[in-house]
């Protein structure tokens, strides 16, 4: 898969790929091939793609429980990602991670994190190492509007600002933390919180990949110049459930007309308007073909051998109780 995200068609193509990935994954959840369900990213694709379009290959990201889009936008192989969700040896993490823990360190994906807010300080630490090595690498940490209310994020913004770390805080404000609308969760405003720590913050249209890319590019430039962290709030919406389990237990917490209203601002439609119909058809066909092959690859891959289940806990090779076997 090409890593480049420069042209309008490439931006569209990557968003299409993420959409196709999530739709494929949803079918595999239904069929029982993906266990544990997923947090679908559908509706929010512009955020991951717009932000990653502003990054260089060796820049780093941390991701969230709703992380498939981030990982794919940073260049992860959709076939290995799908295999990870299906718990196969060929998965990005050989099945040890699952939907919420994709990591591909070689691609700068330090790991998705299922503890809300907890990836932020890890990103700051990587940014500290980058600052010390003068590598020019920047680190993006994605989190949701719910993550804004985790103390660890506030601790991290303070530290990052004090130490002028090359880290970019990207808040995906999709209006809800599970079932709770942001009005019940957030006092004040997201951007004002960042500004309180002396971090410049900006709110952007989270459905427009091009807008997001230019805001992210400014943040990247600032970080590379040694001027410290930035904060980006992307106003977006998830078109689907919080988690696939929600469909079974029929949670009801947002009006249907609200969902319909947001669907009119589908980020793929917005980006499609910037490319030719032919470019669009080609990208659609390519994404469909990649995912068909990915599905086949994932389902044909072997399940992990329980005999290896204790491996990879310790780098020293220690295994099991107290290390003795």
């Amino acid at each position, binding site marked *: 898969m090409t890593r480049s995200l420069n042209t309008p068609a490439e931006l569209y193509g990557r968003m299409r790929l993420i959409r196709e990935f999530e739709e494929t994954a949803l079918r595999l959840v239904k069929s029982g091939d993906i266990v544990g369900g997923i947090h679908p990213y559908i509706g929010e694709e512009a955020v991951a793609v717009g932000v990653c379009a502003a990054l260089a290959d060796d820049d780093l990201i941390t991701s969230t429980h709703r992380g498939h889009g981030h990982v794919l936008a940073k260049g992860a192989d959709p076939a290995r990602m799908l295999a990870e969700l299906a718990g196969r040896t060929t998965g990005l993490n050989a099945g040890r991670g699952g939907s919420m823990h994709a990591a591909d*360190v070689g691609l700068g994906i330090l790991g998705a994190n299922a503890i809300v807010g907890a990836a932020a300080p890890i990103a700051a630490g990587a940014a500290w190492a980058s600052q010390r090595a003068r590598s020019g690498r920047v680190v993006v940490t994605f989190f949701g509007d719910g993550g804004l209310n985790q103390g660890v994020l506030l601790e991290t913004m303070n530290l990052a600002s004090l130490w002028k770390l090359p880290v970019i805080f990207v808040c995906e404000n999709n209006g809800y933390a599970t079932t709770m609308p942001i009005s019940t969760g957030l006092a004040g405003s997201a951007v004002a919180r960042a500004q309180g720590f002396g971090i410049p913050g900006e709110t952007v249209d989270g459905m427009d990949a091009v807008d997001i890319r230019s805001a992210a590019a400014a943040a990247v430039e600032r970080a590379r110049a040694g001027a410290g962290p930035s904060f980006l709030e992307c106003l977006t919406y998830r078109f689907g459930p919080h988690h696939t389990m929600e469909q079974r237990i029929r949670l009801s917490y947002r009006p249907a007309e609200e969902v319909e209203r947001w669907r009119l601002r589908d980020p793929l439609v917005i980006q499609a308007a910037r490319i030719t119909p032919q470019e669009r058809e080609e990208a659609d066909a390519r994404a469909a073909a990649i995912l068909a092959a990915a599905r086949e690859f994932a389902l044909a891959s072997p399940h992990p051998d329980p005999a290896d289940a204790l491996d990879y806990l*310790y780098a020293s090779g220690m295994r099991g109780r107290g290390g003795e076997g």
Partner: protein
Amino acid sequence: MSTLTYREAVARGMAQEMRRDDRVVFLGEDVAAAGGVFKATVGLLEEFGPARVRDTPISEQAILGAAMGAAMTGLRPIAEIMFSDFFAVCWDLVANEIAKSRYMSDGQVSFPLVIRSANGAGVRFGAQHSQSVENWAMAVPGLKVVAPSTPRDVVGLLAAAIRDPDPVLFFEQKSLYATKGEIEDGEIVEPLGVAKIVSGGDDATIVALAAMVPRAVAAANRLEAEHGIRCSVVDVRSLVPLDTATILSEVARTGRLFTVEENPRLCGWGAEIASIVAEEAYGSLRGPIVRITTPHVPLPAADALEDHMLPSVARIAETVRTSLEDA
């Protein structure tokens, strides 16, 4: 040779490793300019400079997260959590992030970092600054857990912890900071996971950790002098990895096991050792395994109460004597 306190040994061990490897960096509250609230890191800022020795805000989650992210990307951080009780405010980073992420990533990354923390009682600071929490750490797969009892072991085990490719929680016992020991000059590195037999005897084995080691030794001396009972005392030194071979062979020789633990009783580390010995050396036991611990309470501030809670030399000696006589 020189005489060093346990607290001075901390700075010596860190400096030894920071001179050797400039990827080693250090962060924590009050650790740089002030040299640590226990004066355990004096001189490091002066020698290694503010880029490697960093004071942080009072943000334990950010400290450990920063250490973790830096460890994943080429540094070898040492983070200080001022009092081990404060692990409770950043346990997510320890138990969910640092400990699990290597496994979750199928071994793509490792976490060569050390978290040092002042642990345990003896300074009368009350319940939120005095608990021994090494058993919390031992309960988390993915961590290594070390607790030295002497200044020399502080240097050697800290050096090994810093060189180790895995995350190590390094517990410094507050009541030992002022204790002194003779340390040879030059580099000292002690392997992790090797227990040390600190006194010999055939009648019983006493297994102890950190501040309980000198008490166990004093109790063993008293038992021999007053009752002719000769105990071997094993300094566990490292709970993970655990040197079960030394413990099992000592118990096989003496037939009796006593543990002396500063942590509160339930699920203290001695319970794990007792279960290992019961499973693997049952046939050599001549009497019950007995655990001597702090009771299952928060530690009170008053000296008379705090002293009463911890295993004392008298309690250790008395427990061993009566148990051997009853058997």
